[in-house]
Each structure stands twice: as C-alpha cells, then as structure tokens.
C-alpha cells in the first residue's frame, strides 16, 4: 500500500515553493519588510510613550505573521488550483498531506526569517521591554505564522477564486484580531465574547507574547498557549487535507 505521506514528496513541494518565493521579490518584501515597517510606525505613533508601545507591541508581533501568512498562503493555493497544476499534482502519486505539509514547511521557513527580523527590530532597535527569553518571542511568532498558513490552506478549499480567498481575510481573521485582547483585555470582554475569544487561536498567540513579556521564565501558562497554537495549526492542516478533493465536479 502507498503511504499517505512521503518525506521526499513533502520536501519536493517545500523546495519548489521556496524556489518560487525566491523569484518573487515583491511577495518576499511583503513577508519581511511590511511587518517591520508597521511595527516601526507603531513605535513612532507612540513617540516616547514606551508604556503604550510595550502594550501594543506583543499583540502586533503575534498578529502580523498570522495575517500575512494567511493571505499569502490562501492566494498561493488558489493560484495552484486555478492554474491547473493542482489537478495535475493530484494525478501523481503524491499524497494530499504531502502537498499541505510541503506548503506549511516552506511558509514555516519564511516565517522563521520574518519572526527573527521582526523580533530583533522590536526588541533590539525599538526597545520593547521583554522580561522572558527573547527566542521564545520568535518561536511563538513562527508557530503563529504556521497557524496562519494552515488556516489559509483550509479556507482556500472553500474559495473558487483568488478574489474570494482575499475576502476570507475579514471573515476569518478580523474577528480574531478584535477579540484577541488587543483592544479590550480578554478578561473584560462581555461573557459571550469572552468565551468566543477563548476558542480563537490568535487569542493564545497574544497571551503567549504577553506572557513572555511579563514573566522571566517559561511558565505553564506559556506551555498551554504554545500547545493551543500548535494544536490548532495541526487541526487546520488535517481539515485542509480532508477538504482537498482529488475528484471534483
């Protein structure tokens, strides 16, 4: 029997996606430069007000990789579908899980780069206060980016065009942004919204960033947050794999 996944096929997909990104300077710029520009803008807005920058910095550090990876992944996958390459891939021995894992790995690698650059900028140059180990910020950012990718892969199964895929952004991402504790602390939300906020993965990413900011060592709360982010990513990937159909009408 054929194994549902083969590392060689997964890596082939990863290499290919990275090769494509390497040529696509504009997307690379969007992935790396835009978060930095936005974080710098935030720092500038609260010119000299370190306290406010410290409050908004961590959630934004969690949100940017999530949102950007969501967008890039859903559009890229849609392009794969509309160009006919997806149909061809599905006629090869490659497993569906290989395709998704290959994508997740490629975007995960980009996310590492993005997270390291953003963290170095916010902590090193803009002076955001962090009591915990700084590398944990990067780890959370990477997991967050992978979660964004996984959700992007999932929703792309429900979009027929790239235009529709982009429209999933306000539907899937903005509610998470509103309820993640950026505007109103999650504890102060009305009861119903507080429960909703508890089931949205981005909330845990923001919690994790704040945890690293205020605690000097790895806490059990942080373990829970990280576990939830990683778990949601895996669930989204599994669902994406289940919704990707070899046979279509």
């Amino acid at each position: 029997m054929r194994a549902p996944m083969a590392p060689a096929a997964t890596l082939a997909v990863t290499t290919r996606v990275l090769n494509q990104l390497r040529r696509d300077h504009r997307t690379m710029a969007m992935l790396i430069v835009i978060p930095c520009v936005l974080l710098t803008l935030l720092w500038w807005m609260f010119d000299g007000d370190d306290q406010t920058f410290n409050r908004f910095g961590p959630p934004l550090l969690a949100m940017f990789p999530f949102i950007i990876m969501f967008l890039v992944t859903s559009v890229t996958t849609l392009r794969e579908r509309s160009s006919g390459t997806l149909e061809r891939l599905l006629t090869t021995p490659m497993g569906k899980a290989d395709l998704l894992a290959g994508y997740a790995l490629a975007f995960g690698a980009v996310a590492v780069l993005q997270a390291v650059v953003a963290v170095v900028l916010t902590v090193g140059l803009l002076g955001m206060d962090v009591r915990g180990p700084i590398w944990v910020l990067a780890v959370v950012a990477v997991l967050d980016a992978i979660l964004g990718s996984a959700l992007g892969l999932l929703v792309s199964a429900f979009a027929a065009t790239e235009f529709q895929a982009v429209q999933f952004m306000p539907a899937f991402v903005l509610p998470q942004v509103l309820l993640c504790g950026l505007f109103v602390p999650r504890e102060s939300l009305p009861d119903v919204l507080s429960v909703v906020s508890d089931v949205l993965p981005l909330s845990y990413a923001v919690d994790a960033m704040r945890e690293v900011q205020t605690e000097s060592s790895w806490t059990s709360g942080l373990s829970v947050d990280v576990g939830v982010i990683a778990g949601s990513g895996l669930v989204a990937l599994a669902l994406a794999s289940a919704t990707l159909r070899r046979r279509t009408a």
Partner: protein
Amino acid sequence: MTNNSGVTPRSAHVVPRHRADHRADSEQQSPVARPLDAEAAVVVERLHVARGGRTVLPELSFTVPRGQVTGLLGPSGGGKTTLMRALVGVQRVTSGQVRVLGLPAGTPALRSRVGYVTQSPSVYGDLTVAENLRFFARLLHAPFTDIEAVVGQVDLAGHADDLVQRLSGGQRSRVSLAVALLGRPEMLVLDEPTVGLDPVLRRDLWEMFHRLADEGTTLLVSSHVMDEATRCDRLLLLREGELVADDSPGVLLDRTGAVDVESAFLAVIDARTDRRAEVPA
C-alpha cells in the same frame, strides 16, 4: 534524494521499459489484477458524468486498445476533457465503470503509470523548464536522467533554463507534455497537446507519439482539429457526450465514403439524425 528512497524509479532504461514491468517482479499484485493485464488499456462501461447540474457524458461505453495511438476527436464542448479527467481519476462520476490498465481509474497504483497532460499547460510559470521537470520527477519517482531526454523529445533543449512564463504558448504546452513523459508511463492521456503548434512541430510530436506506441505505450490524444485524425491508429468521435464513431480512420472513411475525416464525421452525424427522425414516424 528521491531516487534512493527505495521506490522503484519509473525507469528510462531500455529494458525493462515500464514501471509495471518492475512491479510485476518485485511487488505481488493482487491475484485478480494479473489476468486483467490482458484487457484493453481503457475499458469504459456506461459512464455517466454530470457537471454543473447538466449531463455531459450520458452513457458512454468503449475500449482503448493497448500500444496504439487513439484519437479522441470532436468539437469543443463535446466532453473530451471531462472524459479524460474521468480516466485519470479527478472527475467525479455519477455512475458507470472506468478501468485503466486493469485497475479502477484513479487508483493510487495507477498514478505513476499514467501520464496526464491537461488542456491548458499545467506547469509553474515562475520556475524554469528544468526546475519544473525536477519537481515533477521527484513526485513521480522518475530519475533525473529522464529530464534531459524529455526536454529533447519536446524540442526544448535550448530552453531548459528559461522561465516558463517567458516562453510562447506552444512552448509552454510542450513543457507540460514533457512532464507527462517523465518516467515513461505506460499510458499517456494527452488533452489537445498539439493545438497551436506549427505544422513541423506537430508532425514531429505525432511521430514521437507513434514511436512511443511502437515501444508499447498506450496513447489517448484529444483534438478538436479533424485533420489530426488521420495520424491516429484508431478514432473515437465524441459529440455532445455521445460516441458517434469508434473505428480506424481507414474503416471510417470506407464506411462513409467520405474524402476526409471531417466529412466522415458529418456523414455519421447526418445518418444518426436521419435515423432519429425516422423513429417517431
């Protein structure tokens, strides 16, 4: 590296020629599958396909012989692409049976034995020709040595390092064809592979198709251009989802007394229309 992964490569060696030959020795096929190797390359029985709420293939039955070039001809919208998608297992079908190389269409075991070229080129525009081929070779477990060979076969030797999006439409469709040739699949399902190519290239490709058939490959090649019919060993004429002819070009011409396949096609359709008109009378 893919080729050391223990998976038998779809070999480019001269003997044995096809992946199936390896697997016959190395892998125990289920006992029912073996005798069916004698059956036609494609056996379709009462296939019914609906797309977007409309019947596209009402009830199709036919076979495609092994080791020949079979042409799937007919006007645009007749259902050629839908039928080919059913053969490679990406088309949802309502009912009926489709068997390819003795196995149900779309079975995992078939995916490395059947090469498929979609109607519009399905390769990555932002990769070079060689990068595209390397990627697909890894997925198909084909040796990298195949790459140079297939690039030559589709006459793109000078373009291996060109980005696909910078190539002309005809060149792009040949890259797509090259991908399907990787690893020498036992069967090739080619959806309009020669459309838009210049006559010399078209002739060369048809010659290649016949060379592959002589070596034992089964080819199903679609086209809406009737004059390509004469290049096929066998013809399936598909119109509005119905098979209006299934013959060799010679027999079809003799039977209808037509001078070319286009007129033969018209003659067959007229005859069918007359027959239908007579029924209620």
